[in-house]
């Protein structure tokens, strides 16, 4: 198949061919959006705060409760609610560890959490410039 098909003598794309390519690109984009929807259909990921926590934990592996408070700007109770949802889905794990300053609550990402975040980022990357950033 020649690469010149669908082009006129000046190398310009014939409108009908361009429409076909646009439709194919849109269909591809729709497919990726559906895939992202499926990924985010997990109720624990239906919150940008929880997604932010998951992304931060993906980078750091584990974070203290105090650091997560600073990240989210939320109150203790509200953050605890988000963490309970993430923990119930098996995306994070919380534990109390002994430190020099006493007991400290640490939140750690699980293998499942890392995988969910990796897929989410991959889907976002595939969407590329189709989705506005602001």
């Amino acid at each position: 198949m020649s690469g010149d098909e669908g082009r006129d003598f000046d190398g310009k794309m014939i409108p009908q061919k361009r429409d076909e390519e646009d439709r194919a690109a849109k269909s591809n984009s729709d497919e990726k959006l559906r895939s992202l929807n499926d990924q985010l259909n997990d109720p624990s990921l239906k919150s940008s705060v929880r997604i932010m926590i998951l992304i931060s934990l993906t980078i750091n592996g584990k974070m203290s409760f105090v650091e997560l408070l600073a990240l989210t700007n939320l109150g203790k109770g509200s953050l605890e609610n988000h963490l309970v949802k993430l923990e119930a889905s098996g995306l994070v794990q919380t534990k109390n560890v002994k430190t020099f300053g006493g007991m400290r609550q640490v939140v750690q990402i699980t293998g499942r959490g890392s995988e969910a975040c990796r897929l989410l980022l991959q889907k976002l990357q595939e969407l590329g410039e189709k989705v506005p950033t602001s």
Partner: protein
Amino acid sequence: MWRVSESDDRSADLSAADIRRAGERALSFQRYMFRKSWGVYYAVWAVAFTLYFFLPSFADILGFGGVLASSYVLLGIDLVVSIIAGWMSGRIIEKARNSLLVQQGIRPHAGPYQRHHKWFAAWWLTYILTILLASVYFSSHYLAVVFALATTVTFVFYYALKSSFPDEIPSEGKIAVAFFAAATITSFLVSVLSFNPTIYEVLWIVTIFVWFAAALYSLLHATDELVVRPEPVSQ
């Protein structure tokens, strides 16, 4: 049903743009996390430099210099320090790599991720093996070999800093790396040309002081990164 929309439509529970904003905020917060990590990191390396250069002198002052007279004991200390500091470097580089991967996912215009980090483990193993081999086969030039290797650490520090702070490396980081580069290059030249080692000893005392100061500054000023924050994200 909850859907991701291609537009930034607020009627949808959460859009892909919302997710990107959440990611941007996590990345912005990461500067604070890195600043704290680097604070500890500078301090660990400052202790490592102190042990490398001044442990025998401290031991002499404390009256157990005889124990450290054995080159094997000194080699052991060098290796332990290299392993601990190398492990910490690996941790920071791993976090920086994760941060770059997140950036690539949420920023459509981010350049392709460069996988330089995979060379770190190879470099570190080569470093430790060379120290071991130099102690056996080049014992007379051991210091020169160690200093030659140490100059390569400058690039690792710079790479780790640049990966942690892609927008702008904090000033304490630039100063710390510059002093380290000057100290290692001078030490290498002094040991090759057999000049008086006092030259580099003085330089290392200054470098250690600078690294401790960088640690303190980084820890105290980490919260500066929290001052400029984007608007709150929706819950």
